[in-house]
């Protein structure tokens, strides 16, 4: 089975043009993109992504503007490539869950990832996603019991996001035997690819991730590369991570 890999970008970072270009470029190498809608209190993010989000907010971020750039990229990108939102619960509640989902669908978003909405709080949003034929991405973690992993994995759509470490984005990838076993269990029960996130930064961590799971998501390292303002840095890291 070929790997199913994604990349993460902070919406409109470092600016509108570079973001749009990077989103296009990244989709040439990866199967899906995870687009962060910046939030003032990003509790799942480490310093690199939090600082990038903060810079976008300080520059006067507007969600409407981000919808525009996403729509543009969607129209020109390969239709098999998927676009996901990654944001926090307050952003969704603020815009109204239904309105948020409808607007996102209109511009061609395929699904949503919300790290502070756990499985137990996801019912309403899952229903809305289902009605609009969008994927609601579930998280599994090493803290989950086997029973929970079976339940979450069986319900997975799009892909299952396995948070392989205890920590925030940009932390080191360390997977113990027990976690490796749980990833395996998730793969058995999930109808869609099981993807490792958090801690993927270079060839070595990519190899490790692909030994364990069906694919990976790279974020912090790419955001850092794009933060230099040089597309070349971003592109060469995309190539290195995907082996193209």
């Amino acid at each position: 089975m070929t790997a199913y890999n994604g990349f993460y970008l902070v919406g409109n970072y470092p600016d509108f043009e570079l973001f749009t270009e990077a989103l296009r470029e990244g989709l040439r190498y990866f199967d899906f993109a995870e687009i962060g809608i910046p939030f003032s209190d990003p509790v799942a993010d480490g310093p690199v992504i939090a600082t990038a989000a903060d810079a976008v907010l300080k520059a006067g971020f507007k969600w409407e503007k981000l919808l525009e750039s996403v729509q543009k990229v969607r129209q020109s990108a390969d239709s098999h490539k998927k676009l996901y939102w990654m944001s926090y619960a307050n952003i969704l509640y603020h815009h109204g869950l239904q309105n948020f989902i409808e607007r996102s669908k209109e511009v061609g978003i395929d699904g949503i990832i919300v790290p502070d909405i756990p499985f137990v709080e996801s019912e309403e949003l899952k229903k809305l996603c289902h009605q609009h034929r969008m994927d609601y991405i579930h998280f599994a973690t090493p803290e989950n019991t086997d029973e929970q992993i079976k339940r979450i994995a069986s319900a997975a759509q799009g892909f299952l996001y396995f948070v392989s470490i205890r920590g925030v984005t940009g932390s080191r990838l360390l997977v113990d035997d027990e976690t490796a076993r749980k990833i395996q269990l998730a793969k058995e029960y999930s109808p869609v690819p099981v993807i490792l996130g958090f801690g993927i930064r270079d060839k070595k961590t990519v190899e490790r991730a692909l030994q364990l799971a069906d694919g990976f998501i790279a974020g912090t390292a790419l955001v850092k590369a794009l933060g230099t303002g040089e597309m070349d840095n971003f592109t060469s890291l995309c190539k290195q991570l995907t082996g193209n």
Partner: protein
Amino acid sequence: MRRPSRKGYFGNYGGRFVAETLINALDELNQAYESFRENQDYQQKLKTLLSHYAGRPTPIYFARRLSKKISVNLYLKREDLLHTGAHKLNNTLGQILLTQYMGKKRVIAETGAGQHGVATATVAALLGLECDIYMGEVDIERQAPNVKRMELLGARVIPVKTGSRTLKDAVNEALKDWVRNVQSTHYLIGSVVGPHPFPWMVRDFQSVIGKESRRQFRKMTGALPDYAVACVGGGSNALGLFSGFMNDPSVKCIGVEAGGRALTPGDHAATVTLGKKGVLHGSLSLLLQDEEGQVSPVHSVSAGLDYPGVGPEHSHLHETKKAEYYHCSDESALQACQTLARWEGIIPALESSHALGYILDHQSRYKDKDVLINLSGRGDKDLAIIIREVL
């Protein structure tokens, strides 16, 4: 007062909006707390500590001179007399025993003004547990004496350099620490905020204020007060007081928020009054936010009220009209602090001064009424600010 639903909701507010990683820890905490409540040994331990260590019951004092001056019968529940100088200790004593009951060896906490940090460092020293306190850099600067107190008590104070570098960011960093160390560590939240079961549990631990108040007030006056008034930041001292009177329809509960410099965005912290439904720090509640859903900057002269969120149960009490919420400006709070000092010889915390300040601003509305105010803390910690602002 009612328990929240099984999923941790008070009406439309509450829940558990946290990373999947924390869900089992919250379940475990919930189960441990259910059994802790029924454990006679531990309940006796808590009772003993509350009386012999903390100094409960705290008295109700009738403020005779000031009452006469303003024609309102003012009664003060003296939480300022509790060990460490504020109501915070009721909660930290309860949670530290729960930590021990769960067999965890380390506690972390967030602090704004430093009161909850000091109360946590105190109980960690009492039981010999490791203690790390997250505190925003801005707060470390403006509450320097409390930083030294925490260090003297053996805690480590970790400066928070992200975001606005105040209380809200300290909570963010404490949550991140908890995600990393969830197996060894209990997060000792200081108010009725955060994911379920915290809002319920912290209210329970603070409900001793309301229980005592009701009994004491009846003994003193033969009746119940007309109003029970408390300041609201996250809202723990207010829920502690209100919980004693929720079944008494004749007693009106009033929460007073920080009106700050003005009611324009960024200049106040009047969340219930001006907030919109939103999610911050693990629960769905009212929240001060801008038109993009970003959490608004807030301001209050009192660091303990300088918070853009509020406990979910307050949002519920507001929506169902079981309690009323108003606000008091920085200026009125500072004025109230001086008035109580001069007329009664009591220097209240600037947080508690908001509750008094609201009554002083509207004294004609409360003429000849019996008003019970929760004097949640003492003002020594605020001396530098009081000197800068008024003396």
